[in-house]
């Protein structure tokens, strides 16, 4: 019974923790411009993140070591350093977007300007990382993030034509007025938002923090294969409510407030309060994950002591990197740069860096020296290779499409 509860908790946490500011904004924006005709990109992204998160979880459980620990050893210090530099910068950019997201969500609840919330949000994130136990930190915000289920409730209350929605998903088309480059630019943004690299850094490092062994592989798979797809459904619900309420009114999402409006229209104040709670929890949880991931990446590469299970004094350099990343994230948003723009750029640059994260994972999870009999099977390798081609295509196309479409305008 206790084990069942633990599995259920893990799955629920994975659902609630799947959505972050990138998913919130990109799903709302795409739903308001393209309806559900880009749902395929989210679905493909969810399959990809499941595939690679499972591999990274398995690597952590079998080897007891996290991603960057092995990347340097397997790829060598130079390639590993290039990988670290790109991944670290994108993780900090995503961290800044999440801090901005927390502030924007608090502004919705208080009408106090988000810039005033930014330092408080940064301080709260750092304090939680510093003081709160890993299991609490992981579970509480994941569970609170489940409040975003209210988007599914709102979708149901809007009484849509389900066959029409299904048709949009199953027979995707480019709505008139939107150029093909813009369509594919947002497809890559959705793909990047679903497969954000920090998710696997956090997942594998979390596995090491929790001392996963081979016996935990089944639990890890359940979390990934049940939790992440259900989290993906939350993203689709956000897109669907935007498609039903905002698209017919010519509203294109460029603010977090617009993402929540369909919930208020469909289900009123209480539901909107749940949505705001979900926004805060999702962005706060993701800020913790990105903040920790920045420390994990650097500390694992350089072989420093890292993690939440040792006392801060014993992992001083790890905590210093986390603190410096927090300051950088807060400072970025305090420049008054639009947090929504930071979010949009973070998901696109994530797409650019995807091969740097996922190629090493595929290589290591096939290495018998590390994995023994737990190397990838044929299906994992086939799917992993297909997805590697996809992430390379997305990475190569992202910047030219961003320039050609003026970032999706």
């Amino acid at each position: 019974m206790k084990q069942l509860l633990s599995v259920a908790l893990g799955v629920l946490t994975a659902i609630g923790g799947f959505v972050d500011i990138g998913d919130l904004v990109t799903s709302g924006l795409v739903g308001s411009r393209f309806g559900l005709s880009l749902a395929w990109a989210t679905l493909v992204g969810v399959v990809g993140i499941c595939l690679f998160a499972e591999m990274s979880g398995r690597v952590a459980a079998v080897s007891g070591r996290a991603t960057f620990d092995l990347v340097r050893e397997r790829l060598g210090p130079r390639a590993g350093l290039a990988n670290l530099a790109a991944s670290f910068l994108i993780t900090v950019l995503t961290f800044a977007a999440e801090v901005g997201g927390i502030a924007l969500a608090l502004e919705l609840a208080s009408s106090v300007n988000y810039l005033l919330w930014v330092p408080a949000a940064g301080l709260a994130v750092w304090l939680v990382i510093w003081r709160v136990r890993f299991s609490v930190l992981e579970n509480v915000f994941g569970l609170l993030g489940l409040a975003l289920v209210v988007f599914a409730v709102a979708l149901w209350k809007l009484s849509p034509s389900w066959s029409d929605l299904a048709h949009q998903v199953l027979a995707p088309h480019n709505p008139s007025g939107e150029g093909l480059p813009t369509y594919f630019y947002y497809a890559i943004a959705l793909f990047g938002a679903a497969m954000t690299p920090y998710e696997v850094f956090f997942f594998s490092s979390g596995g090491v923090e929790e001392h996963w062994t081979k016996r935990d592989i089944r639990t890890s798979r359940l979390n990934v294969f049940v939790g992440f797809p259900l989290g993906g459904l939350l993203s689709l619900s956000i897109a669907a409510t935007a498609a039903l309420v905002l698209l017919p009114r010519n509203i294109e999402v460029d603010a977090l407030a617009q993402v929540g409006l369909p919930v208020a229209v469909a289900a009123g104040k209480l539901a909107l309060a749940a949505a705001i709670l979900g926004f805060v929890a999702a962005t706060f949880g993701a800020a913790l994950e990105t903040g920790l991931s920045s420390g994990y990446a650097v500390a694992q590469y350089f072989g420093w002591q890292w993690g939440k299970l040792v006392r801060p004094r014993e992992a001083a350099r790890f905590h210093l990197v986390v603190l410096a990343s927090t300051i950088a994230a807060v400072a970025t948003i305090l420049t008054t740069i639009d947090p929504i723009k930071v979010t949009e750029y973070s998901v696109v640059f994530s797409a650019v860096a995807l091969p740097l994260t996922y190629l090493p994972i595929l290589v290591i999870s096939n290495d018998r020296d590390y994995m023994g009999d737990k190397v990838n099977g044929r299906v994992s390798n086939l799917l992993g290779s297909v997805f590697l081609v996809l992430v390379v295509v997305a990475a190569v196309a992202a910047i030219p499409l961003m320039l050609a479409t003026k970032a999706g305008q």
Partner: protein
Amino acid sequence: MIRLRSLVIAGAAVVAVTGCVAPAPSPGAFEGKAVQTAKAALSSVDTALLASATAVRGRLPQPYLETTLSSAEDSLSSIQTAFDSVQPPATATSDRLRDTLDRLLSRGSDGLAQLRIASRREDHAVVAEATRSLQQVADGLDRFEQEHSG
């Protein structure tokens, strides 16, 4: 070698400086920019109208309404600033196009400010008046977009 390097640096400087001065777009490109501007402005105005209507039905809390309206107002203001900074081509049609859209954008900005102020004061009569005025702006922007699209 030093001369070649100086030439390269001077060339790069010329390219950088001339690149900072945006040339006037062609009449067609200007019309395209105007349509994109109208579309973005319509999104801001319609956001405010939807938020206001939802609040009137008692479904939107005051802080959320205020934030949404402020955000729509800021958004429209930056859209207007960006459009006004574009040098129109020297044709009478382009000047008329600019005047028409600029009037709509100014009326939209005024309407959004009026709606925000009235909403904060919970002055329902002024909210209704501002909503009517904004609806006219939204209709005008929609017509503008239809008339000048492809």
